[in-house]
């Protein structure tokens, strides 16, 4: 872990129904380059809302998210030349890969087309170069022979591995995972977790919402425990698992472990 702050989250709030529901209630945390931050907590505690706020899939009610020295929750910022400039969220999202519980592959496109679409259309990468890159990434997750298949022809575990490498095509600086193994049959969880583990070992910054406590403990190097929209405890996963301080965390762990 370095001290290089990649994402700074300051006093982030997300309210629904005019504040009746506080999905995020004043959350502040720094994410450093190379961090593998795992987020745990009971259902409805705001884990997804937290993760989805980071790339503004969810628009926060209040607070700041500093990415590359820009508060991306605002409409504009003052650039280096001292001029007011619009925040282009699409630009920042390219640098934040996201993996969903339900994969969300594009069903009308082949695996290869799924992977090269955004690089070609968004980054204007030449088609051949994108294809080459996609095939290399597919080989890395053992799916090079499925390049021309459609998503429907793949198993859940294969789909999720494709979803991960599809996000990697954009060369993100951070990868966001929202319960990536929750929709999988038990026998397919392992293959996805091992891809994620390999990704973590390669130095990728990751934020992972998960119910896989084994993975959280083994792969995570920092952990957040959330409840009712707040971060109740944070620290090294092994310490939190072995020596939880907050009664809610103790209670939560006694139920899931």
């Amino acid at each position, binding site marked *: 872990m370095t001290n290089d702050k990649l994402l700074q989250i300051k006093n982030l709030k997300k309210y629904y129904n005019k504040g009746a529901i506080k999905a995020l209630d004043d959350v502040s945390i720094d994410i450093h380059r190379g961090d593998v931050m795992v987020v745990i907590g009971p259902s409805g505690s705001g884990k997804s809302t937290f993760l989805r706020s980071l790339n503004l899939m969810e628009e926060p009610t209040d607070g700041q998210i500093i990415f590359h020295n820009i508060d991306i929750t605002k409409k504009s910022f003052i650039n280096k030349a001292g001029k007011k400039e619009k925040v282009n969220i699409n630009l920042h*999202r390219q640098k934040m890969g996201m993996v969903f519980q339900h994969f969300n592959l*594009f069903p*009308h496109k082949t695996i290869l087309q799924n992977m090269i*679409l*955004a690089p070609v259309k*968004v980054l204007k990468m030449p088609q051949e170069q994108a294809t080459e890159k996609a095939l290399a990434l597919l080989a890395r997750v053992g799916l090079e022979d499925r390049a021309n298949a459609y998503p429907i022809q793949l198993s859940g575990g294969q789909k999720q591995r494709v979803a991960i490498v599809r*996000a990697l095509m954009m060369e993100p600086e951070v990868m966001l995972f929202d319960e990536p193994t929750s929709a999988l049959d038990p026998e397919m969880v392992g293959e996805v977790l091992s891809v994620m583990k390999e990704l973590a070992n390669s130095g990728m910054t990751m934020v992972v919402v998960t119910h896989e406590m084994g993975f959280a403990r083994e792969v995570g190097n920092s952990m957040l425990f959330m409840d009712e929209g707040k971060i109740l405890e944070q620290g090294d996963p092994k310490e939190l698992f072995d020596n939880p301080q907050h009664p809610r965390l103790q209670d939560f762990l006694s139920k899931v472990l």
Partner: protein
Amino acid sequence: MCIGKEIIMNNFITAEGFEKTFRYIKLIEQGIFTTIMLALFTVVIGFILGILLAIMRMTDFRPLRFLAYGKKGRIRNNRALVAISKFNPIAFLATAYVEILRSTPVLVQIMIIYHGVFGKLIEIPSFTMFGFLKSNRFIPGVVALGMNSGAYLCEIIRSGIQSIDGGQTEAARSLGMTKVQTLVHIILPQAIKNILPAIANEFVVIIKESSITYTIGVQDLMFAVTAVQGANYIVMEPLLVATAVYFCLCFPTSKLIAYFERRMSRGDKR
């Protein structure tokens, strides 16, 4: 020829009647061609208009949004203000258009377009296409039919777009794609595939409905029928010929599109 006498139309079906009808084969051919041109132009205009209207109805443009917020950006308690703040003029216009066109007869719409809009407001240069299609009748006819089917296609397209899982948009946007790129590359291809049967159905409806343009003098198939009827005092034979032609246009079209739809859906199911 029959001054002072009532014209007696022959309601019987005779071989002679068919023979007389086929003497006008040139007129009937032109009518068929016109009908096909009407339907093709209409479906293109209707489809473009339908996509535009569907996008308008789905915009998130709320210029009065600020009314909902008081000091410090807090949402006001005043319900009326909050309700007004949600007003979307673009969506309102599109919705009004769709509802009005779907709730009035196409015959009335054609008359208004022909006599009102193109008769008074807009002057169409008068020219002849393909040697017989008169622009000052064909264009109002196509515009009226296109405007009408645009309203129906808007609703078909909108339901198609809304049937696509929200996760698709999220995945595309999370890869940095813009709203427009997401619509063009992810949402529309899937939506259009889903609604192809409904669009095909609309195309067949347009072929049949285009017959109404004979009331403003478009020389389509029905125009040919009335011409033959009037010249020969026969009723049934030209109508039967028209029936056969309409059937031969519509039935294979719907079968053909159903075939392509089956083939297309094979790609991602297997």
